[in-house]
């Protein structure tokens, strides 16, 4: 099992990835440009899913779960 510190680092990483994804989505809503839809559908969800993946990874490897 992974140590508490390593798991917290993963949760931090998951949060930062989620933050980037949500910020990309937020920017796309204000950016009035044809590419804003691509930013919203491609960049935002990619980071959110990566964050979710890292979060799930931290859950399955934590010893106090």
């Amino acid at each position, binding site marked *: 099992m992974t140590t*508490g510190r390593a*798991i*917290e*680092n993963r*949760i*931090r990483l*998951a*949060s*930062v990835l*989620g*933050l980037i*994804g*949500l*910020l990309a*989505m*937020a920017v*796309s*809503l204000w950016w*009035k*440009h*044809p*590419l*804003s*839809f*691509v930013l*919203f*559908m491609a960049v*935002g*969800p990619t980071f*959110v899913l990566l*964050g*979710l993946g890292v*979060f799930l990874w931290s859950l399955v490897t934590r010893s*106090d779960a």
Partner: protein
Amino acid sequence: MELMIPLVGLLVVALGMLIYLAVRPSVTRAVGGKVLAFLGIFLLPALSLALGFEAHVERAKTKEFCTSCHVMEPYGKSLMYEDTEYLPAVHYQNNLVDREHACFTCHTDYALFGGVRAKLRGLRHLTVQYLGSIPDTVKLYTPFNNRECLHCHSGARRFLAEDAHTETDTTMTSMEANRLSCMASGCHEAIHDAKQVDEQEMWKEPTR
């Protein structure tokens, strides 16, 4: 637009949760922290994605969005031609289409998943705009389907009163089957002559 307020609220809450988790990941040791992480990392972003998708799709239907590509600007301007025979201008200036959604109203597919196909065409436009080469003359990928015209006009009194539409027993059937195009020569052939945009006189909408 009505989606924006809940969407912004959702994003702000999710961002706040994620910032808190990034600063203090140790909270996830407790059950409450795990719930917070589930909400901030999964549930709220998923809801934001769903609402945001709807907001983007709605925005993509507006004339402002369609003409935000440089190549489409003349087509937007052509809606203001001072020409009572020019079909796009007639529709736009007489409010036969919702002005805010003027492009989408005529250029979507009025069929099952037509909106989805219209969006996929939009993504194809983007690919051509940024990764391909823009042709000198912008053309539709496929011939304009009469279905899009007949969606509104079929059965309308003004439409039926026009002799050409009911000229023979088969005229209407031919139009419905796309054997006779609404844009055929001698019918409504003046469609978006955007190359002439700088030479055309423009309609000046009276101010109230």
